[in-house]
């Protein structure tokens, strides 16, 4: 279970790293970096779905919030992808996707200590 969770976290970090060519703001990912990012993102989406089903252990609310932000980030990407936005507003949706994902990752790092404490408490 632990390995599986670490694998998912690794995918989140990988998704962040592959998004680096999209910096600075206003520059969308394109070309090879986009292809890699989408591949990692697709695996992560499936992972997130499986997490709901498979993960049974207790979670600290900060960690849950982090996963929620990452999932919301994914939704903000899917909406323009489904053709529900114009090109002008697509930029905003993509930027929102980026910011939510970064916040989610940051929160995941912050929640590491409380999560560990919660797990130790639960096992003891």
């Amino acid at each position, binding site marked *: 279970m632990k390995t599986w969770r670490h694998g998912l976290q690794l995918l989140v970090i990988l998704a962040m790293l592959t998004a680096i060519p999209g910096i600075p703001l206003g520059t969308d990912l*394109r070309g090879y970096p986009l292809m890699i990012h989408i591949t990692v993102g*697709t695996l992560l989406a499936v992972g997130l779905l499986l997490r709901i089903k498979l993960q049974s252990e207790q979670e600290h609310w900060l960690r849950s919030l982090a996963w929620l932000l990452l999932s919301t980030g994914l939704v903000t990407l899917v909406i323009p992808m489904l053709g529900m936005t*114009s090109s002008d507003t697509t930029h905003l949706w993509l930027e929102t996707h980026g910011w939510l994902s970064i916040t989610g990752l940051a929160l995941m790092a912050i929640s590491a200590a409380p999560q560990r404490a919660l797990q130790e408490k639960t096992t003891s």
Partner: protein
Amino acid sequence: MIRSLASFFLILIPLTEIPLQAQVSEETSRWKRTGSPNTYFHHIEIRDDRGQVIVPGQENGRLPHLGSTCAPCHDVEKASGGLHGGDGIDGKTGEPWMLLDSRSGSRWPVHHRSWNSFTSVEELGLKQSDLIKQFGAHDTGGTNSISGMASDCLICHMPHSYNFELRAKSIKDNKPQLASFIAMGLSDVNGALNPRMFDAENKVSLDLKGDAGPEACLHCHQQTPANNDANRPTWTHAEDVHLAAGMSCVDCHRAGLDHHIVRGHDGEIHPSGTPVETLSCRGCHLPEGTPVMRSAPRPEHRGLPPFHLEELTCTACHSGPMSENSGEQVWTSRAHRLGITRQDRTADSPPEVFTGILLKDEHGRWAPHYQTWPAGWVKSASETHPERVLPPHDLRTSLRRILRVRSDMVTELANTPEDPDRTERSISVFLGQQSESTAFISGGLGWKQAAGDQLTAVEMELAKSVEWKQGHPVRPASMSTGAQGCSDCHSTTASWPLLESEPKTLVDLNSNEAQKSAEKLNQEKTTVFDSLRWNLWKPLFNGRDLAKLILSGCAFIAFFGSLFRLFKSLDRRPS
């Protein structure tokens, strides 16, 4: 001291304003204006070059003169200049004129503006009479136009009763100064006025318009598929969506009397200094802030990743031929003398002009281009000289003497079943009698003499293709590339973005040496697109809709699941 200097300047300031005011008042008093946007009906006298009125039957050898006829009311000098008259900044590359010389097999794209890869008039050693004969029919004239003829105002401002073919014929018959009068039926080839066109006051009535409609522009700015097959099964509606909507060319390509016609591209710097950004595609349809043309549809491009708008010009999807016709050969007004009746205009009529070739423009964006390939005789580069064109008329005598070419080099030297190497051998023999640096250019390659009356291919700058951007005809959104989805471009069957035109060589080369050397050079050429990336992309678009559905499903379930887990975590939190 300072006070006296200040007083001096205070006196001087009003004095400097006097000439300026005088100039303005002179200008406003000299030229007549109705002030109304309605068409002014021209009921005028015809004048000779000295401005004297000519009466039919009493010409006494005097010829009608268009400039003098218009001059009493219009600033002809100003109207003869501008970008349309060949003046002003060069700007981005436009359509070249094509010098075709069948006797030397030459096809040179030429322009007086310093545009990359076009041959200059000086290099070709053309005299003014040659320029008039070659390009005059489709040149409206002007201060610095290619032909150097005086401006023919009527070709653009007379929507009806102007016979374009008669004009072309008059120019061919060496009567350029009478061409416009002959074209509108006012005079015969000798300059005698047609009395039936004049009324009792010895005046003529002319239906002249500031905007004579698109037909006036299309005399010289037209393109049509070269096969001209009326029964082709694909849609070839040539009409631009703007024209179909009732607009006119000059609604966007505007100009004042100075004839600095707006070219309509992004970042255009107009010679007048007037901001003309709103007259480009993006300026009108994708304006930042408040739209200027409120009726112009604002495209939403739903589902289109926005970087497409940074990487592509609007014309890449909305202009030129439909993607299935990209790369086809077209005739253009200037290159193929459209509007003049001919029996020998075929799909293979030179020059070959290809359309819808996707190349990067000056802003680094992909845009459809016209493309053509030069042909002719050149001197290769040396330490002291760059590659240079050999003027076709300088070669005629030697071609006739050595190869017996009389009127059409390509036809007369064509291979025959009895002599399958005739073309190659003839060119090789001719090159052998010229200096070592002489080469023949055709099919995107230079050809030099090789042993045994053969030719060998060499790479030459002058042999490279020349391109200019394609702006029209603009297709409506429903007919644009991508209207049917991403797979219009991103599919295993769509290949138009990788399209390159294939030059047809004038010389049919059969020897091993020629074929091997040409093959080697062609293999070294790289495509303009990163085809590896493009081909990697393609499979990702197979089943794309299903992938979107799965990804969306995952995202939404993950979102609601995470929300549920968050509530659960908050619920378990110790109070």
